[in-house]
């Protein structure tokens, strides 16, 4: 309990401060004004989602190599947290796009890729839900996870060749790109805050999965012992 508080208090403080910074400290954008401030949570959520999905890929590969269930727990934790972050991206994006582009959604490279990414990891979680045995679930979902991860660059490339409308990356996006200095600092704060939230959730989910596994094992032991006791009684 104490550990939880020490983990969660700084997160709460940081995310509160990040929200304050995004709303009140960051300079006003010249053409988009207030709606641009959603950017301070949209971009960090996208980055957190990518980090989470990358962790899933690492965990999947590590599971297949080592066959230790802890990697499978990390995989499911990463996928769930990643889907959550990706959902935030998919919700904040249209909220911004409606006043700026005049439409909620467009089938542009980045939007489509993010949407497909979201679907892929939803499928990953669905597959896990429909497999019973924990070893088998770990192996088969790891294989699917690796395939899904390999698909991500292909999805992005195919959509990129197809069409694109999303603003080019503002940071490191070539000439005339870059943020006003005040914006950069606020973005950095929000970035750290959101990634921190993601990691805290990931750890929490990992521990939950471990507890679940321990519970299953205990239940199995109780059941087998009860069965053994019953058969002894029957023999008497």
């Amino acid at each position: 309990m104490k550990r939880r508080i020490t983990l969660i208090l700084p997160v709460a403080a940081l995310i509160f401060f990040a929200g304050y910074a995004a709303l009140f400290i960051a300079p006003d954008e010249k053409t988009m004004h207030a709606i641009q401030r959603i950017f301070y949570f949209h971009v960090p959520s996208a980055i957190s989602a990518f980090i989470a999905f990358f962790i899933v890929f690492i965990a999947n590969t590590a599971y297949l190599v080592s066959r230790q269930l802890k990697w499978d727990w990390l995989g499911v934790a990463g996928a769930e947290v990643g889907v959550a972050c990706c959902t935030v991206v998919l919700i904040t994006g249209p909220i911004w796009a409606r006043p700026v582009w005049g439409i909620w959604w467009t089938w542009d490279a980045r939007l489509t890729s993010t949407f497909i990414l979201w679907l892929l990891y939803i499928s990953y979680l669905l597959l896990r839900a429909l497999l019973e045995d924990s070893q088998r679930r770990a192996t088969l979902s790891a294989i699917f996870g690796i395939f899904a991860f390999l698909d991500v660059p292909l999805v992005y490339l195919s959509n990129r060749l197809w069409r694109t409308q999303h603003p080019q990356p503002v940071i490191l996006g070539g000439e005339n790109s870059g943020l006003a200095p005040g914006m950069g600092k606020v973005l950095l704060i929000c970035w750290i805050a959101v990634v921190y939230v993601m990691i805290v959730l990931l750890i929490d989910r990992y521990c939950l999965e471990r507890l679940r596994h321990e519970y299953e094992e205990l239940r199995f032991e109780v059941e087998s012992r009860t069965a053994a006791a019953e058969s002894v009684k029957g023999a008497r």
Partner: protein
Amino acid sequence: MTTARAAAILLTKELRLEFRTRELLTTTIVFALIVIVLFSFAFNPTAEESRRYGPGLLWIAFLFAGSLMVNPSFAREQSNSTLDALRMAPISSFAILLGKMLANFIFLALSECVLVPAFSVFYNVSLSGIVSRLILVLFLGTAGLVVTGTVFSAVSARARMRELLLPLLLLPILAPLLIAAVEATASLLIEQPALDPTWVSFLAGFDIVFLTASWLLCDYLIEE
């Protein structure tokens, strides 16, 4: 026994099984035909519009039909635990996978041999002069579809609701393949057909990436 020889033997087994009943081929072809017919009810396209939407329709039909067709590949081995027998045979696990991939490829290619001419007739899309290039696109697209489809049929075979789960796993992964195959086919159905090399190489890349991945992961896949 070499992998190629083992895969060839397993392929003959799959073909013999299928041609005894032909149930997989018939259901696949009829299903895809229904998709093609329903499209005309849903959109009522003119000749110009069918030229424009035709490639998309064709590949959607193949994707849906293919994702249903690969399902029995491993599910069929479940009922009599025949996969265990295959696993005990002194052959590599990639041979098992490859045999099934080749069989699925042949089934889907045969269905396409019926569906593409049917599409051409129903929607007044002339295929003269582009047949060989179209075959190349169909070959690459079908290969990518059956490689991922066969692997995922092994993944979903042990799950509950596997018939429903398989398209759910397969179709999002195939999104890039769909875009590339549709664009490549579309570049052939315009006034001056010119095969777009970008999309052809993209399709080839897709096939190579997932064939390599399934080669690397087949031991884990067959063992479970």
